[in-house]
C-alpha cells in the first residue's frame, strides 16, 4: 500500500492512528441482568431493578455474552484469556444509574490478535489488536424534549458491549475504513454484533497523531469520540491529521484532549481538555468473582466456529478459481457469500461471480433491496448461467431473461420456454436462413469476396436477426465462412 503522506511546502508527514470500537453484543438479555435487549420498545421498558441501580441490587454475569465475546476473540485471531476480571469505572452521569460502569480493566477476556485488511491496490495489511474486553453500556440522556429538563431512557443501560482496541497501526484513512468494514464483516459472520454504525450498535473512537515522514517518534494524540460511520471515521482521521500538521508547522503544540468530529463542517473541536479528564478510580468489582474459562469451553466454541471471511475468500480463490478481488467482494457479506455458494454449486463459479457482481448487484441496487429479499433466487441465477453455458440461450437473450426474472422471480428455463427463446443449434435450420440471406444480398456477397471481409459481421447480424436472435452465433459464423 502506498503510504498516505500529507505533503506541504514545509515537509512530509505521516499519520499514526489507532481505533477503539464498541460493539454491542447480540444477546437475548443484558450482560448483568435478566432484562431484555430488544430495541424499539417503549422508553424505560426493558429496565430491571439491577439496571436502574436500585439499592441492594447485584449484577450476575450473562454467560451468553461471555460466549459471544469468546467467539469474537477467536474471530480476531486473538488469545482468549482464561482468567479475566471485572472492574468498576466510577463516574457520575444521569444515565449511569450505579454511578459506575462494570467493565474489564487490568485483565480483559481477550488479549492480542490481528485482522488482515485488503486494500484497493490488491495488497493486504495486518492490523494488530491490542485487546478486547466486555462491559455494560450506559443509558441514554435525551436533552431536546424540554428546555429545562433532561430525560433518561435506561433501555440500553446494561446492554453488553465488546470494546476492541487496536494498536496504532493505521497509516491512512483508507486502512481504517478497510479495517472497520472487515471487522463489521467478521462480527456479522459470527452473529456477535449487528455492526450497524448508524444505529450505534458499533461505535468508533479514533486516536490520531502525526509525525514527520520517516521518523519513528510517537507524538501527542487526540481522541475523537463516537464517530458513527466508516466514511466519517476516514474523514475524521484526515482532517484531524491535517490539523496536527498545521499546528506543528506553525510552531504550535498539540495537547492531549478529547475532540468531536463534525461531519458537516469537516472539522474537529475540543470536547474535553486533559486537565478535565475523569479520574475513573478503577478497582476490582467486588460483586463479581473473576471470570475463569475452561479449555473445554473455549475449544467447544472454537469447534462451532463458522468459516470466516478470510478462510472463505481463500477457498473461493483456491478451489473455485475466483480472483482475489472478486472473492473479497463476495465474502465481505455472509449472506452474499452464501448466495454465491448456492448459485455456483456444480457450475462455473467464475461465470456465476460475474453475473452476481454485474447484473445481479446492479439489479439489487436499482431496486434498493438487500440480498435476502432478492427476487432472483440463487438456484435461478445458477440455472440462467447453465442456459448460457449449454448454449441454450445467447448472452444477449440472457439479459432479457434476467430482466424478467428480477420482475417475476420466475425460473429462467420456463421464461425461455414460454418466449421460445431457445437458441437454434440445428445446423440445417440455420443453413436455410444463411442461404436466404446470401441469396438476398448479392452485392454484399460480391464485396466480401472482393476482400471486404469485415462484412462477415454484417452477415452474422442479418442471420441472427432473421432467426429472432435464437441462432447460435458460433454456428452462424461457421456456416457463413463456409458458404461465402
Amino acid at each position, binding site marked *: 500500500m502506498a503510504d498516505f503522506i500529507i505533503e506541504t511546502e514545509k515537509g512530509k508527514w505521516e499519520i499514526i492512528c489507532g481505533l477503539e470500537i464498541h460493539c454491542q453484543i447480540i444477546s437475548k438479555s443484558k450482560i448483568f441482568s435478566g432484562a431484555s435487549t430488544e430495541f424499539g420498545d417503549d422508553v424505560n421498558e426493558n429496565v430491571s431493578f439491577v439496571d436502574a441501580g436500585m439499592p*441492594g441490587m447485584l449484577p450476575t454475569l450473562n454467560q451468553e455474552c461471555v460466549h459471544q465475546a469468546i467467539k469474537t476473540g477467536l474471530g480476531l485471531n486473538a488469545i482468549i484469556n482464561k482468567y479475566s476480571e471485572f472492574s468498576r469505572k*466510577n463516574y*457520575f452521569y444521569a444515565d449511569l*444509574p450505579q*454511578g459506575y460502569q462494570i467493565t474489564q480493566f487490568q485483565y480483559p477476556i481477550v488479549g492480542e490478535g490481528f485482522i488482515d485488511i485488503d486494500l484497493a491496490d490488491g495488497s493486504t495489511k495486518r492490523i494488530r489488536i491490542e485487546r478486547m474486553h466486555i462491559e455494560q453500556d450506559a443509558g441514554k440522556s435525551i436533552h431536546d424534549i424540554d428546555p429545562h429538563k433532561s430525560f433518561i431512557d435506561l433501555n440500553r443501560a446494561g446492554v453488553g458491549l465488546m470494546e476492541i482496541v487496536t494498536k496504532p497501526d493505521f497509516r491512512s484513512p483508507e486502512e481504517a475504513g478497510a479495517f472497520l468494514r472487515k471487522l463489521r464483516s467478521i462480527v456479522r459472520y459470527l452473529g456477535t454484533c449487528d455492526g450497524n454504525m448508524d444505529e450505534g450498535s458499533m461505535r468508533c473512537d479514533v486516536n490520531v497523531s502525526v509525525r514527520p515522514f520517516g521518523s519513528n517518534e510517537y507524538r501527542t494524540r487526540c481522541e475523537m469520540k463516537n464517530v458513527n460511520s466508516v466514511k466519517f471515521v476516514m474523514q475524521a482521521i484526515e482532517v484531524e491529521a491535517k490539523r496536527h500538521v498545521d499546528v506543528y508547522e506553525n510552531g504550535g503544540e498539540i495537547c492531549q484532549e478529547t475532540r468531536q468530529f463534525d461531519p458537516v463542517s469537516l472539522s474537529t473541536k475540543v470536547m474535553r481538555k486533559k486537565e478535565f479528564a475523569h479520574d475513573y478510580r*478503577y*478497582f476490582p468489582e467486588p460483586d463479581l468473582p473473576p471470570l475463569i474459562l475452561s479449555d473445554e469451553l473455549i475449544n467447544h466454541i472454537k469447534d462451532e466456529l463458522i468459516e470466516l471471511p478470510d478462510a472463505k475468500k481463500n477457498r473461493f480463490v483456491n478451489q473455485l478459481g475466483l480472483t482475489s478481488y472478486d472473492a473479497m467482494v463476495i465474502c465481505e457479506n455472509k449472506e452474499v457469500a452464501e448466495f454465491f455458494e448456492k448459485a455456483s454449486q456444480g457450475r462455473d463459479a467464475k461465470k456465476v461471480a460475474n453475473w452476481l457482481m454485474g447484473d445481479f448487484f446492479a439489479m439489487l441496487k436499482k431496486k434498493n433491496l438487500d440480498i435476502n429479499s432478492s427476487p432472483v433466487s440463487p438456484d435461478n441465477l445458477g440455472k440462467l448461467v447453465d442456459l448460457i453455458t449449454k448454449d441454450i440461450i445467447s448472452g444477449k437473450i440472457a439479459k432479457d431473461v434476467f430482466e424478467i426474472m428480477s420482475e417475476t422471480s420466475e425460473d429462467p428455463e420456463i421464461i425461455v420456454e414460454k418466449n421460445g427463446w431457445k437458441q437454434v443449434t440445428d445446423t440445417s435450420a440455420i443453413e436455410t436462413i444463411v442461404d436466404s440471406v446470401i441469396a438476398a444480398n448479392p452485392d454484399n456477397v460480391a464485396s466480401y469476396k472482393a476482400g471486404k471481409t469485415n462484412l462477415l459481421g454484417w452477415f452474422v447480424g442479418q442471420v441472427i436477426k432473421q432467426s429472432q436472435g435464437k441462432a447460435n452465433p458460433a454456428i452462424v459464423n461457421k456456416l457463413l465462412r463456409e458458404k461465402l
Partner: protein
Amino acid sequence: MSDLTDLTIAESLSKLKSREISPVELTQAYVQKLNDNHKYNAFVTLTAEKALSDAEEAEKRYANNTNRLLEGIPLGIKDLFCTKGIKTTACSHILDNFIPQYESTVTQNLLDDGALFLGKLNMDEFAMGGSNETSYFGPVVNPWSKNTPLVAGGSSGGSAAAVAAKMCAAATATDTGGSIREPSAFCGVTGIKPTYGRCSRYGIVAFASSLDQAGPICKDVRDCALLLNSMAGYDPKDSTSSKREIPDFSLSLGKDIKGLKVGIPAEYRPDGLNPEIASYWDKAAQILKDCGAEIININLPHTKYALPAYYVIAPAEASSNLARYDGVRYGLRVDGNGLDEQYINTRTEGFGAEVKRRILIGTYVLSAGYYDAYYLKAQKVRRLIKNDFDNAFQKCDIILTPTSPIEPFAIGDTKMLENPINMYLNDVFTVSVNLAGLPAMSLPIGLSQNSLPLGMQLIGRAFDEDTIFKAAYHLERGANFVRM
C-alpha cells in the same frame, strides 16, 4: 404465666406446636413490649398491624399442621434489608421514603419459613458506625443503660437493643467490620456473622461488598442456629454467595468439645487491655478447658495492620456503592441548577457526616496516584491477615477473643466524637474476621463492674460455623449469663 417475650424462639416454637400459646398471643406480647419501649429508639418503621394479621394466618397453619420452620415468630429487620412494600432507608436521609418493590433474599427466606416482621430496626447510616449515633433517626439507647443513656453499639444497634429489650424474638443484622458482634456484646445478646458467602447479599443495601455479610442477633446460641439455618443458602442472584450445603447448625449444639483446640491470639492482648475484659477472657478459656477443650497460644502477627487496611478497603468500596444515591431515580432529590449542582445539593443534604467522611476517604484511596499506596497495599495486607488465620487454624480449631476492647459508652461521648479514629479503634477485635471472610460469633460472658454486658468472640474456619456453635453452646452454659 411469665411474659411470653422471655421465651427463646426454640421455646416459643415448642409451645406453639403444642398449642400452649398462639402466634397471635406471642405477637401481641412483643407488640406490647415494643410499644412500652419506644424510649430505646430501636425501631424506625413499625409494621405491627401486618404482623398481627400474619399471626392469624400462622395460627391457621398450626391448626392444620402446615406450620413451617419459624411459623409465627415475630422478628425485627435491620433497615438495611430491602423489604417489599415496606419503607427501607438504611437510616439515611438520602433514602427518604424509599419503598422497595422487591424483597431481599434473606428476608424472603425468613418469610418463606413463616416468620413475621414487626418492623424495621434502627442502625448507623448505611451501616457506617460503631455506636448507632450516625443514624438519621438518632441513636439507639442501650436497654442496659442506668442513669446516663449508653450506646447500643453499631451498626446493628437497633437489632441488638430490640432483642435485649425483648421487643422482638430475634432480629436480622449485617456485619461489615463488627456490626453484628459489637452491638451484640454491648447489649448482652448473641449474634453470629457467618462465613462470607453464606447469606445472599441480594437486596441488602450495600456498604462494602467484599465484607458485608448478614446474620442473626438472638437471645441465645440455639436461636442463632435456628435463624441462620433459615437465612443462609446459595442464591443465584448473588454471584458471591456460596453453593456449599448448609448443615443443620442446631445438630452441633450439645456435642462435646473434648480435645477441641481453642486458640488464644497473643496480639489481641495488648498491654493496655482493660483488665476486666482480660479476666473475662481468661474465664471463658477456663470454661472451655473445663469442658475438655485444649487451650493453645497462637499468633496472628499482622493483626495491627487490620484496622488501617479495613478503613481503606471498606470506604473504597463504599464510595463506589453509594454513588447511586444521586437524586435521579429514587430517594431524596434536592434540585439545583444543572446536573452537577443537583448531585451536590442532594448528596450534601442527604448524607450524614460519617458517611461523607468515608466517601471522601474511599474516593481518595482509589484516586490516580494513590491507588497503589493505599488500596492495593490494603489488599496485600488483607491477604496477609487471611494467611495468618490459615496458619493459626493449622494449630487450633477455633479462636477465642473478646468482642470489644471496651464496654458500652455514653451517647455523645466526647472522646469518640472529637476523633473518629477513637471510634474506629473499637473495631480492633472484629475487622480481621471480615477481611478474612471467616465466621464469628459474639455471646455474652458476664457483666462489668458497672453492670454492663461484655461479650466474647469465637472465630471459626471458613464454612465451619458448626464448630462455633459447638463451642458456643458450652461457653454459654458456663457463663450462665442472665438476660435482661
